[in-house]
């Protein structure tokens, strides 16, 4: 498993009339470069180069694919095309736009507009490290997700699901726009049920039905992920993953710690979106938008003394567990 990642194309390589400036990021599906065209305009170019299936030596242009991996490589290429197709049909400020698609170096490239800023995940981590009671202000959360939901609604209108919504895939630009990126998991599923390949998932943000084969996914699957993103924006950490929740659901408990900090309505929205039963969630983005924009007269319920004591007791118990574990380790060490 200690795998060598395929090496990225070096700066100043020319591909499809664009000059590569540098690598921006690399993921399981490929490498994203910052590149400029001959007019000096900047673009983000995504290269299909799955690290588990293809290799490329330093300084080489062409990736090598092992013969036994070829069919998986081609299959991955198909979903790269799916991503291109999905994005090509959508033109919305909250959805990253694809501008060109071309073939070179025996692989394919997707040209997208280059966004400057950071992912929501970066912002959450920075904000939570300030150790304030609130990670983000409630009004920030509401307006951020209102913007995301507008984009998501368009995505769903095109009979597509994103299926990998998470803070790392929500980009916040320096000019304060929220943009959904990385539609690598997106599939045109709303139209052709039964012909569905289970896509990728991210624990914590993936709805329970993503883990099951029999159940059907729908807008409610993306809505679960939106709820989990709002949760992460309030708590600073992602929620427990769905299998853990099915075993023992601590969602209400951890949300109750936020009572008084965030309004009851926002907490209820998260709980609604993240219902384990798909039917209990908002069934469409529109339904969720309506609830999220009901901002009149926020109600804050403070914790009762009893509840506060119980919460404190919980943290004492978990502290004791930690101490016990430490003692255990020392025992092994000095025996």
């Amino acid at each position, binding site marked *: *498993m*200690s*795998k060598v990642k395929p090496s990225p194309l070096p700066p100043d390589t020319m591909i499809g009339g664009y000059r590569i400036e540098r690598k921006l990021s690399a*993921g*399981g599906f490929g490498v994203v470069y910052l590149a400029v065209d001959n007019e000096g305009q900047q673009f983000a170019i995504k290269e299909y180069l799955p690290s*588990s*299936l293809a290799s490329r030596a330093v300084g080489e242009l062409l990736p090598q694919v092992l013969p036994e*991996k070829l*069919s*998986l490589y*081609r*299959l991955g*290429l*198909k979903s790269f*095309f799916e991503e*291109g*197709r999905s994005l*090509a*049909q*959508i*033109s919305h400020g909250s959805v990253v*736009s*694809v*501008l*060109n*698609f*071309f*073939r070179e170096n025996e692989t*394919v490239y997707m040209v997208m507009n280059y966004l400057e800023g950071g992912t929501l*995940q970066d912002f959450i*981590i920075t904000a939570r490290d300030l150790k304030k009671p609130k990670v983000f202000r409630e009004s920030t959360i509401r307006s951020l997700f209102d913007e995301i939901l507008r984009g998501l609604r368009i995505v769903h209108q095109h009979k597509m699901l994103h299926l*990998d919504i*998470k*803070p*790392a895939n929500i980009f916040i630009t320096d000019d304060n726009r929220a943009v959904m990126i*990385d539609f*690598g*998991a997106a599939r045109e599923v709303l139209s052709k049920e039964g012909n569905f*390949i*289970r*896509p*990728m*998932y*991210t*624990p*914590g943000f993936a709805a329970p039905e993503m883990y099951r*084969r029999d159940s059907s996914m729908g807008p409610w699957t993306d809505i679960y992920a939106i709820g989990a993103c709002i949760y*992460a924006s309030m708590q600073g*950490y*992602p929620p427990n993953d769905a299998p853990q929740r099915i075993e023992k659901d601590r969602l209400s408990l951890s949300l109750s710690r936020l009572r008084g900090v965030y309004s009851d309505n926002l907490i209820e929205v998260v709980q609604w979106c993240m219902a384990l039963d798909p039917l209990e969630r908002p069934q469409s983005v529109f339904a969720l938008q309506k609830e999220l924009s009901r901002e009149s007269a926020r109600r804050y319920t403070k914790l009762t003394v009893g509840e506060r004591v119980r919460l404190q007791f919980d943290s004492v118990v978990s502290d004791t567990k930690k101490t016990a*574990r430490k003692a*255990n*380790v020392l025992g*092994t*060490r000095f*025996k």
Partner: protein
Amino acid sequence: MKFSVFQLSRIGGRALNEDRMGYCYTRESGLFVLADGMGGHPEGEVAAQLALDTISALYQKAARPIVSHPAEFLASAVLAAHHRIIRHAAQKGMLDNPRTTLAAAVVQGASVSWVHCGDSRLYLVRNGQLLLRTRDHSFLEQERAGLNELEPVNRNILFTCLGSPAKPTLEIAGPFALQQGDRLMLCSDGLWGSLNDAQIVAQLSCQSVSKAVPALVESALLAGGEHSDNVTVLAMEWETPDEFAPTRLGPADSTMDGSFASTLDAGGFDTQADDLDDAMIERSIAEINAAIRRSAARKT
């Protein structure tokens, strides 16, 4: 879950390599095993192999995709291995049982649990420091720890192992939380008999496990000279403590390389894979570019 792992076993100056090692994993859990078949008894290499096979087979049954109680699992799997060795000896009508020492670890949920029996060791190294290592079940090590007052003894004398008629002493520890960059190493006495802990920790910390393991084995063989014992090292580096996990592939995850086929559910993936020829690729690209132009036209 992401980690790098590297393992290497060399025969040294012996006629036979009686060490065995191996690992397997699911997408959320990993098992690492090292067994050192004992000399002075018959078929040490068989005992080591049986222990490895038994534990990994039980793991593959239990890990779906995680083992529900790693400590309990390790205890019962190692005991099962012990009984399997005894059965093997009985079936073959052997006068003396084959024996092996063993160290095994289960890593899941960003923490590690382990078991050891005899003098195969587990080391845990963080930021260049030895965080912990197992204490051998040998009279020498017990004496060092001040637990008994015997005369100086041969380090090779163990008071427990798998395969002996007496029930083995298993020392189980964990779960112990891992941090990014932590290195977990299992090794046979061929390594620690020739190198001291400081040397082991230094070599293990300064480079990736894929380089550190061969370097460690090489140093031990050099130090052990022409009669060097078998040297076996299995090390892994923990790479993902990230609270924000990366996207994972679904059940047909191709990165799992089939080392653990039983949990892979590859249905529905390969069936449509072969219809994407060059003409299709060109057509897809043309379609996408046409869609891009249409969207751009709508926008303006």
